[in-house]
């Protein structure tokens, strides 16, 4: 009788082929982004408890105060105030909440639609595939910004308008990639086996295709975090995103553009925040992809 025990090796002392320095850098590329992302989520959930001030409360006598670690700043407003005397830190915290929620919602919706379309396209093939891919082509060729502007004007700016604007075309990127995966999986041996066993097409798509597509999906989603935040920021910067006085990182950057010479911190801090989150999302996506790719030997 053969048993499982013979196959598994007992884990021995870890001896890796890389130098210590290389290994530290490599684990940092996971920890740092993870910390940043978790921090963001934390902030989002507990904003009212963390933020020192109400983000839309104006302090007219204390406008354009520099951050506390600069000359002229006070510890009262750690990151300074903007042109209407609102605390930058509090606006950053609430703004992060807005940016993140909008992005996550948009990601969920686009991932959901894109995955369904991709799997249906790749697995069913034929006319369904043709139809869905033409839809995807159309979505990809539409100018997203224009649509966003039209929506903003037509429906009126607001949280849900932005979500809608980001979602309406964003699924196209997913559907193509997922379709490729589904096509590959359709021809795999275990799918053939399922067909021999009489599993229905829907059953195969749910139980066999989807779980094997999840990996790719997660990678795309983490890489989309950065893109969505940037997109939301762009919309807000242009004034067709989250309307004032609700802060969002993009609108904060926009607010400070006239004060770049005398109060640079109004635009800079939210700008840095956007950059950090986009970078973290990308690193995280890369890390997940490397971790889950079975072909890359684990060194």
């Amino acid at each position: 009788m053969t048993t499982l025990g013979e196959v598994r090796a007992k884990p021995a002392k870890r001896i890796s082929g890389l130098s210590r320095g290389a290994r530290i850098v490599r684990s940092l590329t996971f920890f740092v982004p993870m910390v940043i992302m978790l921090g963001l989520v934390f902030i989002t959930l507990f904003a009212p408890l963390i933020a020192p001030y109400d983000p839309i409360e104006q302090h007219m006598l204390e406008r354009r105060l520099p951050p506390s670690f600069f000359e002229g700043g006070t510890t009262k407003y750690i990151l300074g105030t903007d042109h209407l005397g609102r605390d930058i830190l509090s606006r950053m915290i609430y703004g992060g909440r807005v940016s993140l929620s909008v992005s996550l919602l948009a990601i969920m919706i686009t991932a959901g639609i894109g995955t369904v379309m991709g799997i249906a396209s790749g697995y069913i093939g034929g006319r369904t595939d043709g139809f869905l891919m033409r839809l995807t082509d159309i979505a990809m060729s539409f100018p997203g910004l224009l649509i966003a502007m039209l929506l903003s004007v037509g429906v009126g700016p607001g949280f849900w308008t932005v979500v809608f604007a980001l979602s309406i075309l964003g699924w196209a990127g997913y559907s193509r990639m997922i379709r490729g995966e589904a096509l590959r999986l359709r021809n795999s041996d275990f799918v053939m086996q399922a067909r021999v066993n009489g599993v229905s097409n829907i059953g195969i798509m749910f139980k066999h295709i989807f779980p094997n597509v999840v990996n790719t999906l997660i990678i795309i989603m983490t890489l989309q975090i950065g893109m969505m935040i940037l997109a939301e920021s762009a919309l807000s910067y242009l004034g067709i995103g989250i309307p004032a006085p609700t802060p969002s990182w993009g609108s904060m950057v926009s607010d400070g553009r006239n004060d770049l010479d005398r109060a640079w911190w109004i635009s800079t801090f939210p700008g840095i925040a956007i950059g950090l989150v986009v970078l973290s999302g990308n690193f995280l996506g890369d890390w997940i992809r490397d971790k889950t790719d079975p072909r890359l030997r684990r060194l």
Partner: protein
Amino acid sequence: MSEIVLQVENLHTSFFTRGGEVKAVDGVSFFVRESETFGIVGESGCGKSVTALSIMRLLQEPGGRITGGKIIMEGTDLVPLSKKKMRAYRGRMISMILQDPMSSLNPVYTVGNQIGESIRLHQALPDNMVEPAIIESLRLLKIPTPETMLGNYPFQLSGGMRQRVVGAIAMSCRPRLLIADEPTTALDATIQAQYIALFEDIQKKTNVAIIFITHDFGVVAKMCHRVGVMYAGKIVETAPTREIFKAPQHPYTSALINSVPRLDRKDERLFSIEGQPPSLLNLPPGCRFAPRCTVARDTCRQQEPPEVNVGNEHTVSCWRVK
């Protein structure tokens, strides 16, 4: 006897992974002579392919590297050679053929181009002599209509033909040693027979020494003069082919030969070896085959057996053989 082309002495190659050091090749020694074919037989994971890659110094650093031993080719130890010097050996003195001809050939270049690349790299021929040299290589592998073949792409060829093109590339610079890693495994039986006959012919013409790695005993019997049987990173028995089949000394060798169904008689029940090869991360103490050996004794489980010479170039590592 003809001279020795390659001598491997106590080769150790390891892979450094998260789980620990995997000693893929753990003290392997053998030699090959001019115009001789040495077979390395073993199952997956025994280290035969890693041995081949070690000789070619094609291991991927930092994960895998030679940790000890010598690989002596015509007086020079290849192990300490610089990358630059080693490149002069590859393709010219030592060549290699792999199992899958489709991935050995670049799909976007013609056959003539790929053979020519090797020739141009290693031989200082004037331009007008290159094409005749390519055609000569194609003829050596008995490829029909070599002139037309020059312009063909890999996808236009069958599996057997592709494998011949791979052979032509390998032989284009008339190497002293050819390492063939399971070149016939993916081929049909009748094509395999053609291929083996072809290589016997090439060996006669060019005196090349061949290391032939395979798991197929039928191929070993037809092709190899001497054989080394590998198990879990070590060679357990080396002997001339005839002796390996007629009088195998190591229990693994005889078990392996007995577990192969025979075509010349009807087997009532095949002998099968219980269990699996050991994990290279977690080797048992003593003889590595002991856990699966039907005649193992206590000594076997405690100490690794030394290599014993039983005459006529026949060596065995087994406590039962003195």
